[in-house]
């Protein structure tokens, strides 16, 4: 019995310790721990990125970044939490590609990614690679497009979810190249890979860390990567853009955002610290190993990027009829 109540107390104490204290803001920022709200469950790539960057930045700022996982509703839940938080620099959002897609995918996402948030810095991006299964006899993107053109509506591709980036990346290619490939949605990326390996679907946009070992083993073929420049992770694969579709870019990106109204000095301070973190060669290599390409960028560049992403995905969502409600 004593043992049990002891456990209870321990848990209560832990629960209390996790609660951020509402200490009064003082003139020097930061003077308390910073909540970094991540719209994904712990353990995945996005969470790891936040933890690596947050830990390094925390050391420099002398305050801890507390990663708060707030998955759900395609990232909308996390965005709403941060939007409603005080704009004092102590609550930040890991904004990502889904937040810009969400602007056109949902009727009422509950926030406006451009109006309600101040972009601070883009932390990293992951390109997809267009891969084809064992039954598809093409070696380049051009050949794939020609094959698809020769039999419209016959080829199939898998995505890890309706309205997700691996779905819309293909929809964008379809409308750019003028081809018809049938969409087979899955729950998550693992079953897509299984059916691609088994030859039940013809193509899919896969993440590089998942695809490269399979390509090297000869189980599937990689045709082109979706980033604007070649990815450091797969430098021998051409981009979609250089394969005949200039301007094509479809990546999963992650950045740091603050609620609107956060003082400019705080934004500037955070940008400076995180820019230092992502240009550290050790951290950059660590992120690359986990599938993230990292480039230096200013807050203005990131803001312009968020704006162009929002516009780009709105067009693709419209064309693909991915919108649900």
């Amino acid at each position, binding site marked *: *019995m004593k043992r*049990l*109540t002891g*456990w*209870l107390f321990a*848990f209560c104490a832990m*629960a209390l310790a996790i609660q951020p204290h509402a200490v009064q803001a003082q003139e020097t920022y930061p003077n308390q721990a910073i909540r970094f709200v991540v719209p994904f*469950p*712990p*353990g*995945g*790539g996005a969470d*790891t990125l936040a*933890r690596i960057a947050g830990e390094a930045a925390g050391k420099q700022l002398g305050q801890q970044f507390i990663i708060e*996982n*707030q*998955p*759900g*509703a*395609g990232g*909308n*839940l996390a965005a*709403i939490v941060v939007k409603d938080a005080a704009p004092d620099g102590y609550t930040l959002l890991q904004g990502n590609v889904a937040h810009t897609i969400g602007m056109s*995918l949902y009727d009422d996402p*509950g926030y406006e990614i451009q109006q309600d948030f101040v972009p601070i810095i883009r932390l990293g991006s992951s390109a997809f690679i267009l891969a084809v299964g064992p039954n598809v006899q093409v070696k380049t993107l051009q050949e794939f497009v020609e094959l698809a053109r020769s039999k419209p509506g016959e080829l*199939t591709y898998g995505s890890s*979810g*309706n*309205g997700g980036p691996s779905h819309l990346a293909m929809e964008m290619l379809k409308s750019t190249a003028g081809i018809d490939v*049938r969409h*087979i*949605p*899955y*729950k998550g990326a*693992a*079953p897509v*890979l*299984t*059916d691609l*390996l*088994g030859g*039940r*679907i013809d193509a899919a946009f896969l993440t590089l*860390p*998942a695809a*490269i*070992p*399979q390509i*090297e*083993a000869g*189980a599937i073929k990689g045709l082109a990567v979706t980033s604007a420049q070649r990815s450091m992770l797969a430098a021998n694969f051409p981009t979609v853009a250089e394969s005949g579709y200039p301007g094509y870019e479809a990546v999963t990106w992650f950045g740091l955002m603050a609620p609107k109204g956060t003082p400019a000095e705080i934004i500037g301070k955070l940008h400076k610290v995180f820019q230092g973190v992502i240009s550290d060669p050790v951290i950059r290599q660590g992120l690359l*190993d*986990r599938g993230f390409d990292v480039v230096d960028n200013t807050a203005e560049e990131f803001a312009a990027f968020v704006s162009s992403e929002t516009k780009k995905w709105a067009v693709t969502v419209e064309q693909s009829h*991915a*919108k*649900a*409600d």
Partner: protein
Amino acid sequence: MDIFSNLALGFGVAFSPENLLYCFIGVLLGTFIGVLPGVGPLVTIAVLLPLTFGLPPEGALIMLAGIYYGAAYGGSTTAILLNLPGESSSVVTCIDGYQMARKGRAGAALAIAAIGSFIAGCFGTALIALAGPPLTAIALDFGAADYFSLMLMAVVFTAALAQGSLSKSIIMALVGVLIGLAGTDVNSGVRRFTFGAYGLVEGIDFTVVAMGLFAISEIVRNLEHSGSQEVATAKVGNLMPSRQELREAGFPILRGTLVGTFFGILPGAGQTISSFAAYMIEKRVSRDPSKFGKGAVAGLAAPEAANNAAAQTSFIPTLSLGIPGSATMALMLGALMIQGISPGPQVMSQHPALFWGLIASMWIGNLLLVILNLPLVGLWVNMLRLPYRWLFPAILVFCCIGVFSINYSPLDIYLIAVFGLVGYVLVKLNCEVTPFILGFVLGPMIEENFRRALLLSKGDLTTFVTSPISAGFLFLTAIVVIAMIVPALRKKKDEVVLDGETG
């Protein structure tokens, strides 16, 4: 022989003092965490992952694997003692395990669970070592049509086994399907039954439903008898299983092991289904199916063996194909990547020490678990001697913490309260919860695979019979349906024949 040199290499790696230590720490942590309801291997591995960064790859993976199957073991403990499924795979353990505990056989139930898991673990390990690489082909051969037919077969089998009112069972299963369908539709992205609540957009987690229906409703039921000690906490009984109980457990353990092995290999089917399937098969082959749900030894031993066998064999697709069968397995792959090893078809040939070391450590881990758990049986059973007024608030708190840790969604805590109430009402109405749970688990998977199969075939229904695997399952299903109908017609005649033989 290749296999012996491989195993020799594996045991060489696993028996090194530091790897033995990592294995021990892993299973110990896993057992304790498995005992905490809802705090499953997924959360544990996610939290402990950074600890393994500094370890060599073999040590890291051996420890994480230890946590994984240790948690599968620990989950059965609370399921048996408190009707509290610690892991989704131990829900089935609740059904007969808890009834055994109520009859004063808690110690025996825990021991049988441990022994069954050990036998299953040994078999799973041997199978991976012998046939791991060829078995991976099975995982790739299963398509949407095959999954559909497999699950349809499971549903028909369950209907065939329904006890009591058939109409009640069917209604329960259908309600389960409806609740399982809540969330975002895979094909269209439409949100179904979410009523505008963000917490429902990703659907309702299995653990939430199971904890509410089993643990919470049991608490409510026990509190009916305020003051009295009618509940399981009163009797403890002899700790070790009797010879009779061991005999009853023998074949179910073997059958459960085979079932679990099969489902573990299929990515996406997983441990939960394997324990259900094992339970259904036991009920089917049992001479006295009416004992199920009232503390049948077979109803405990088979699913326990199945979920442990599945826990082991699910490493086959994960390691040899680089395809994670579950979220937990995805984390394991993440751990490999952090160690600089790309999971995929090359792991076995490029990192033989890692692959075979892990397999050997699984067998050692299972042995450690038995050594660890049999003496602990006495300790765990003592938990039942606690006054219930102390026990139930603790269970409630642990349930809430566990459920919250799955999705970090406060709505899930309200939901276990709702499902607790629903479970209580169902018990009062004499409705079985098992068909509901099965509908909840299988319904959405049947829908998803049916629609995917038709998307792939452009709406051509013959896809379900042109695939040989799918056709095989449909054939078996048809036989079961016929077997259900025919005896009903011939029942009288059979009884006459039987009388003639015995008399």
